[in-house]
């Protein structure tokens, strides 16, 4: 393992297994500096979501096992007790999942759910309206009274982000947070991540299958294939100078603007008058 500086926010080298699927993650190395936005790209089944849950040690609740080393702010998270780990979750590392409408409890009002995120670690209540404003949601008390089914997908995603940043965590893990959104809403959410990163100095680990969206706002990109990290570099280097054949294949698969086909080989059919 490379010797990381003390400044590193998160440095990990982990392997993970499920009982029926060994080797979901194999010696995956990840390093995130404070305030850095790191993108993690891989296809379905590459182990991206497993990595997100493994970093928060939530894999055990799904029957999996995490091995290796996981240093966050100088502490090895794999050695913490359950109670200590619970204090890390939500307060120092936040998680935003995809499909926001199922990641919210359908029977609880969203104001209540955000409050619950706060109360998990602190007393009292936060400034909810200011929080709503930070994530570009209407800062009204009436909005807090709504149920998840009364929100649009984009709004629900923002609520999830609000719940995750309520304690100003040092790291935010966004697991396919924009995969369920249309292109325009996706761009808005990515802008939101960028602005939160600038305002709060919060590091972001952005996990996605879409290399293009990742490249647009991440400082550093890591590529995951079949549970292994195959390449990790700055965004510019990845796009200009991809080293690994898989990275090159990903880049080649990015759709470009369509080139309109020329009709030289097609015989014009005479249309009867």
């Amino acid at each position, binding site marked *: 393992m490379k010797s990381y500086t003390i400044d590193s926010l998160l440095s990990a080298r982990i392997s993970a297994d499920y009982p029926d699927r060994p080797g979901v993650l194999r010696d995956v190395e990840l390093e995130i500096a404070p305030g850095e936005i790191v993108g993690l790209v891989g296809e379905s089944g590459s182990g991206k979501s497993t990595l997100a849950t493994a970093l928060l040690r939530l894999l055990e609740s799904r029957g999996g096992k995490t091995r290796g080393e996981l240093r966050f702010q100088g502490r090895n998270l794999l050695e913490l007790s359950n109670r200590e780990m619970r204090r890390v*979750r939500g307060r120092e590392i936040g998680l935003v*999942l995809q499909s926001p409408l199922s990641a919210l409890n359908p029977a609880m009002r969203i104001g209540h759910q955000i409050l619950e995120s706060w109360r*998990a670690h602190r007393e009292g209540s936060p400034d909810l309206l200011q929080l709503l404003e930070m994530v570009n949601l209407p800062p009204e008390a009436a909005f807090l009274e709504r149920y998840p089914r009364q929100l649009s997908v984009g709004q629900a995603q923002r609520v*999830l982000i609000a719940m*995750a940043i309520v304690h100003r965590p040092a790291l935010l893990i966004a697991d396919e947070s924009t995969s369920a959104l249309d292109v325009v809403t996706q761009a808005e959410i990515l802008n939101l991540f960028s602005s939160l990163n600038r305002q709060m100095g919060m590091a972001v680990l952005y996990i996605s299958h879409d290399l293009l969206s990742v490249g647009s706002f991440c400082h550093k990109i890591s590529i995951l294939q079949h549970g292994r990290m195959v390449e990790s570099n700055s965004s510019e280097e990845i796009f200009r100078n991809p080293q690994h054949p898989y990275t090159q294949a990903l880049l080649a698969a990015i759709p470009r603007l369509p080139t309109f086909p020329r009709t030289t080989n097609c015989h014009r059919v005479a249309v009867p008058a």
Partner: protein
Amino acid sequence: MPRWITRTARQLASLAATVLLGGLLTATLVRTSPGFDSDERQLDPRLDAASRALIQEEHGANRDVVRFYVRHMRAMFHGDFGVSLSLQSPIGALIRARLPVTAELMGVGLAAGWILAFTLALAAVWSPAWSKIAGLLSAGARSVPSAALAVLVFVVRGPMHVVIALVLFPRLFDYFRNLLSDAYSQPHILTARAKGLHPGGILCRHVLPVCAPQLLALAGVSASMAFGAAIPVETLGDLPGIGQLAWKAALSRDLPLLVTLTMLITLLTQVCNTASDWWRS
């Protein structure tokens, strides 16, 4: 307001229909089975001709199902359940005397069974080790007939309520475990965990509210199972309850008593069903 009334009315109507059907079905089955008309007491040489004629007449009165049934229903509305032929005492009094014993057996057994099944199901979902242990216990309790469980508990001189709990436990456990396992794999539970919430808080605020209706759906079914198990339990333990009464009635082929008991049990289980349906909606 009207919708609430019509819904309750509909549930009560189906309740009444079930009970009536139960009684009618039993009477019909009894009527069409062989040996309905005969009674070995008629062969008893110790009885004189007058007594034998009386027995013959008693059975003759029971022969017409409709007449018997109508007579029976009319009597019931007046609080008279008829007289038990074999035990020579009013059925209503018999039931009233024996109901508390069965109620206590059922109550404790049902409560213990539910608590045991739910606790183990939760443990099974939280920990794979407990999942295996509880699974084995459940499989073990399931493969032994309720009569055998009663015998085994009796031999070690344990309380008979345990038998009811053990009979209910495997079926309830399987259902609860599936239910809880589904509930815990929902994405919003992962979010709750990622927030760092306490497991107890997650259980009370996120899992139970979602599961509660489906949990309650088993109320009537478990009551029905418990009553079924009561018969061998009370017979073996010599507990003077409804189950033992049913067994005695079956042995002495006492038609009025059996019909009444069947209707009573059906009524009780249907009340449970209706109550849980009403609470769920």
